[in-house]
């Protein structure tokens, strides 16, 4: 009996040695960056950027293929590469703005459905055609395929963009009480580099064409509590100093506390309260402490940021984009007033009260 069993184990071990699911790196062509465009007759154009296989070749190559679905286009792309094309290490996908104006979930479905895909990949809406941008050269960058993900991640680091991965985007798309937002990227021909232009605002699953520019999108990042390691605001503090640069003050908030509340009986109002602790990092007319300017500076920053936030809310409202997730709060705390269908109209008319509380806590190592 014992011997039989041992024999059986040995036999079974034979099955372990072979593998149906092996994927060898040498047989794969890993795609890091991919671009989607609307093609002719409603087809999808997929541009995949692949790093070169031969180390002697410096530049990345881009393959461009068309298909009815994304899978189809990728399938066709396999006709151009010597290996099997593989998207499991995808880092960033670029969506043409025209394509983003359609329901983008249909384009992303394949990425959520396949268990091999990387849900941490970033997404961005690009100005103009994604394939055009991906075929453009990128200055001083050896690897184009990693450039775009780095571009977005560095913008996240300085809090211009809130981090949005494929997974967070999916949650935002499904949530009726909040809207999707994605980085907006364009290409600068003179500099031969791409540029983050701000935050593309979506209404439900469709791009509205409205963009929050970087200074406003930084405020948005603060309010949605998703800031990166560094955050900086520069505003014009005085009018008459010489040289012109002396008029500007740069601050770095080192901590923030945001509370967004929706209150009211019949008519709801949104109250946004932001507490910031700032370090003044650049302001050439010195003596901030000596002349006891701090209370005035604090007051001034509060006003300034409130003004900008109003502007930001106006942009959000004009896009009918509830990117801050106010609807989520209405449905949670005022379920009797929550109606998925009329929410956007209610949102556009909703008054916002924004209150900043700024405290200067440091001025660097000089006064």
């Amino acid at each position: 009996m014992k011997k039989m069993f041992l024999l059986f184990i040995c036999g079974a071990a034979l099955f372990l040695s072979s593998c149906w699911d092996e994927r060898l790196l040498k047989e794969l062509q890993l795609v890091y960056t991919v671009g989607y465009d609307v093609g002719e007759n409603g087809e999808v154009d997929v541009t995949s950027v692949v790093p070169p296989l031969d180390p002697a070749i410096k530049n990345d190559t881009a393959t461009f293929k068309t298909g009815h679905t994304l899978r189809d286009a990728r399938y066709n792309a396999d006709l151009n590469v010597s290996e099997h094309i593989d998207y499991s290490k995808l880092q960033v996908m670029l969506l043409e703005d025209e394509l983003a104006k359609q329901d983008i979930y249909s384009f992303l479905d394949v990425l959520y459905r396949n268990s091999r895909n990387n849900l941490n990949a970033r997404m961005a809406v690009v100005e103009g055609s994604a394939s055009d941008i991906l075929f453009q050269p990128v200055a001083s960058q050896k690897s184009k395929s990693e450039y775009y993900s780095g571009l977005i991640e560095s913008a996240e680091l300085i809090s211009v963009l809130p981090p949005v991965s494929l997974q967070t985007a999916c949650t935002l798309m499904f949530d009726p009480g909040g809207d999707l937002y994605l980085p907006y990227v364009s290409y600068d021909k003179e500099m031969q580099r791409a540029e983050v232009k701000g935050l593309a605002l979506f209404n439900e699953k469709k791009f509205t064409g409205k963009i929050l520019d970087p200074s406003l999108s930084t405020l948005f990042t603060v309010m949605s509590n998703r800031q990166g390691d560094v955050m900086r605001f520069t505003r014009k503090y005085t009018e008459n100093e010489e040289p012109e640069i002396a008029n500007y003050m740069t601050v770095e908030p080192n901590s923030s506390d945001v509370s967004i509340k929706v209150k009211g009986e019949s008519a709801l109002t949104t109250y946004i309260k932001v507490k910031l602790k700032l370090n003044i990092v650049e302001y050439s007319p010195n003596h901030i402490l000596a002349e006891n300017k701090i209370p005035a500076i604090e007051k001034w920053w509060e006003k300034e940021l409130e003004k900008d936030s109003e502007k930001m809310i106006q942009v959000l409202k004009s896009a009918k984009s509830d990117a801050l997730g106010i609807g989520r709060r209405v449905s949670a705390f005022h379920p009797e007033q929550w109606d998925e269908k009329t929410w956007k109209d209610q949102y556009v008319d909703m008054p916002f009260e924004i209150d900043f509380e700024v405290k200067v806590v440091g001025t660097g190592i000089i006064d």
Partner: protein
Amino acid sequence: MNAKNEITGWQLFFLIVQTQVGVGILSMPSDIGKVAKQDAWISMMLAGILVQLIILMYIFLLSKFPEDTYYGIVNLCFGTIVGKVIMSTYLLYFIGVLIASMTSFHHTIATWIFTDTPKWIILLLFSIPAIYMARENIVLIARFKMLISFLLPILIFVLAWVYIQPQFLYLLPIGGSGVSAIISGIKPAIFSLMGFEAFLFFAFYVKTDRKKELRKGALATAFVTSFYAFTIITTQVFFHIKELIVVPYPVLYIMKALKFTILERIDLLFITIWMVIALSSFISYLYISANTMEQLLSKKNHTKMVYIVMVFAFFGSLVPSSLLEMKTFMQVLLPVSLIFTVAIPFLTMIVSFFKKSAKKEKSA
């Protein structure tokens, strides 16, 4: 080996916990979420209370006849012939459970890791350790379950990362999905707690200090309920409920989306760990069905029965080929399970009232 065939209260606790927790936990949050929406955790708590009541009924029934196994009690109450019929239906039911357990295990593995590996290979590799363990006596199995229980907190540890950016607003308004939705959510919640019936069979082996020790075993369901409620809440503060509904394995999906400095795709690592838990749940059922067969055929040893049952289960689980067939099978099996876990023990209890008095009359 220890021939006493006797387990302690804590061993009973782990036996039942490990029978209840299997691959089901990976998909359970969306099954309940489909019905009870954001209040799924309330349904789970209510289901936990109901199951606790069922366990109390088991304790009551079993402590009336401390000398007998559950089947012994059934035979005593209904007579040998009816008893045998009931036993054989139990055997069929448990083979059904084994098949369901294997196919859902295979489905999880096949969709997440081994997409191309043939089904029979995965099932074979699953059954070999299961047989190896289930042919041993109860003491060894109980020790094995205690040994692997340190794997359970791994789930909590990994899911804790969700609480870096939780959306507690998704849980509100509490009770917003309505009383009827919460109540109908209890049904899938009870199904996800299935495995508590193991109490009926394993409690027999608790022999010393029975009253006190059985109470420890009864804690198992309370533990599993809170474990599940934690999982439900965690998935719901991560996914919006509308998204949760389309994600069949939310727990794995969360892990897939997490990113650590060096590690990516911890869902794959996690499945490999969780296979052991799934296996352990399977072992319990395999042991119970072999035990049922042993008592049905009045044999002395259950080892041979393990092989026979396993052959049925193995070939049975090769039959359902599509996802749809598997789902249909589950939809039949789950309501049926209520007959075996609630209805029959309850009937037995009712009948036992009369039996006892009859016995007393005889002795008097």
